[in-house]
């Protein structure tokens, strides 16, 4: 009878101790969400433009992590992003076949702008400044060329244009591949 009492007591103590240990471990060594998705999201441009077909960069990163999207999904990221994503996910890509996108930004045609204020309300990076019935202007440094404002402009005053080349940004062209 006494043996049974010792067994019950020791097993109870053991259970409590291990349970406490597991509980503490679960509290301190908690894994929050999907770390891969969060890591991938940091690599993406983060302008939430939606050109990949996903509602924002978080969803795109989630899809990438789940293997539901290709590493070539992000048009603004260009070849550099494909390279970094492929390196992180261990995917093989032929970089020569990835089309390089030239950086583009939106530009307001002053003579067409009617100051309707629609564009700056949709701009994900606050890159457009304007007020009602005043000509709007795009800050080149903040514009990501995401196309959102082009869709809402009633007069086609906003147009996407390649970023102008300056003495600071100019560099030698890639030599022609003749051989």
């Amino acid at each position, binding site marked *: 009878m006494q043996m049974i009492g010792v067994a019950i007591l020791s097993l109870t103590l053991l259970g409590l101790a291990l349970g406490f240990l597991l509980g503490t471990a679960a509290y301190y060594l908690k894994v929050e969400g999907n770390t891969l998705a969060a890591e991938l999201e940091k690599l993406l441009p983060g*302008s939430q433009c939606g050109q990949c077909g996903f509602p924002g960069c978080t969803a795109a990163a989630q899809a990438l992590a789940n293997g539901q999207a290709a590493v070539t999904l992000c048009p603004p990221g260009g070849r550099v992003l494909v390279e970094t994503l492929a390196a992180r996910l261990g995917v093989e890509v032929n970089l020569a076949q990835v089309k390089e996108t030239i950086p583009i930004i939106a530009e307001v045609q002053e003579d067409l702008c009617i100051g309707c204020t629609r564009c700056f309300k949709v701009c994900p990076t606050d890159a457009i400044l304007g007020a009602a019935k005043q000509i709007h202007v795009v800050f080149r*440094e*903040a514009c990501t060329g995401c196309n959102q404002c082009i869709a809402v402009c009633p007069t086609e005053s906003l147009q996407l244009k390649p970023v102008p080349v300056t003495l600071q940004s100019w*560099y030698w062209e890639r030599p022609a591949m003749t*051989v």
Partner: protein
Amino acid sequence: MKLFRLQGGIHPDTCKILSAEQPIRSLPLPNWLHIPLQQHIGASAKPVVKVGDRVYKGQVIAVSQGAVSASIHASTSGEIAAIGNYPAPHPSGLPIFTITLKPDGADRWLEQEVPDEPLTLSPEAIAMRVNAAGIVGLGGAAFPSAVKLNVSRRSQVQTLIINGSECEPYLTGDDRLMRERTSAVIQGIRLLRHAVGAQDVLVGIEDNKSQAITAMQFAAMGTEVQVIPIPTLYPMGSEKQLVKVLTGKEVPANGRLADISVLVHNVGTAYAVRQAIYLGRPLVTRVVTVSGGAVAKPSNLEVPIGTLVEELFRFCGGFRETPVRLLMGGPMMGIQLPNTQIPVVKGTSGVLAFTAQEITGNRISPCIRCASCLRACPIGLQPLEMVARIRAHDLNGAIRLGLKDCIACGSCSYVCPAHIPLVHYFNYAKGELAARERIKLKQEATRKLAEERMERLARLAREREAAAAARQAAKAAKEKQANVLAEAI
């Protein structure tokens, strides 16, 4: 003195004979001067004159702004005719902010006080005067000299090396300067030494300039300046290579000369420093070699900064035949000019006009992996492997092979029997990497903007909800009060 061996390097035909025996002549004042506001590495200078202002020669027309920058001075007395865009001396031919000056012909200097005994000035005062004179490295890179002096003084540089190697073919300006204005160059060198407190001063001159070596050795007798003949080998004038040959020390990858306690200045810079401190003359002229097979009379000219290249060629008797290529700088590292309407700037060591015979128009053929480029590379890189990576769009692979240590000297392209433009690939890759860096910075900035916007929208929504709730509560309270009143009545 024991010299150290340089790996790689090439022996191109120097062609210096064309202009080496021509004494430096002053170019007559041109009708117009186009003075770009950025002739140096760093931030552009800010104009301090208006259109219509009259200026003296040597008067500041644009001040340096930021830590690394240089002031710009009027190259002659006259009237400011325009401030605006003008084609830059740059391979792209893009415009740069430029002040156009109409000379009045009087060439009147703005008189400045000069110290009685320049060598008794404090090192800080020398650096300050060098800064005020707008002096930049005249060897070609055009880095503001005062910044170099200050950094070197603070890091207590042991050795000052003066670069008189002039290893680029065709160029003879430094050679002539050392031969004709020897004592002034030595005075400048002693000032530079005093400004950084260096122990040793070594002047390295390539041994194909024997007259310059003799003149400099004679003038340096009895001073702490040591003039040392060094082998003629391109790219001896690259500062890392020069330091290696003279001291045996090698600059670590991604490192700077100050890391090995060395400072390098060009002989032209030493001369400019002397002019600034002994005479109070800021940097408004420089010696330019006008040469090349297409030039009628190759010469060395002292040219006001901002003179159009066409004036230089005209003064040298025009063209003997139509040039097929125009260059600013040397043939190895110079930049191609689209036309002759480009101004001479502080970093212009020469302007060259080449005939069809002088340039190779050979067709590019496939790489046969002969490794000539490997033997020619003065850094010890593997150009053929780097190009293979760049062609496959694998820029990171090229970086792992040492792309960032490439000095773009062009030795590999020069020796390549298949005429592959190797250095062009490296320049492209470096530019592409810089562009990627800029894109990354922009993405970080726009990501922050997008996050801020989302936060703001969420906050506004919360505030609206709170306001609506408050209104509802107020309305309810009012009704309740009305009910109470109604009941009371």
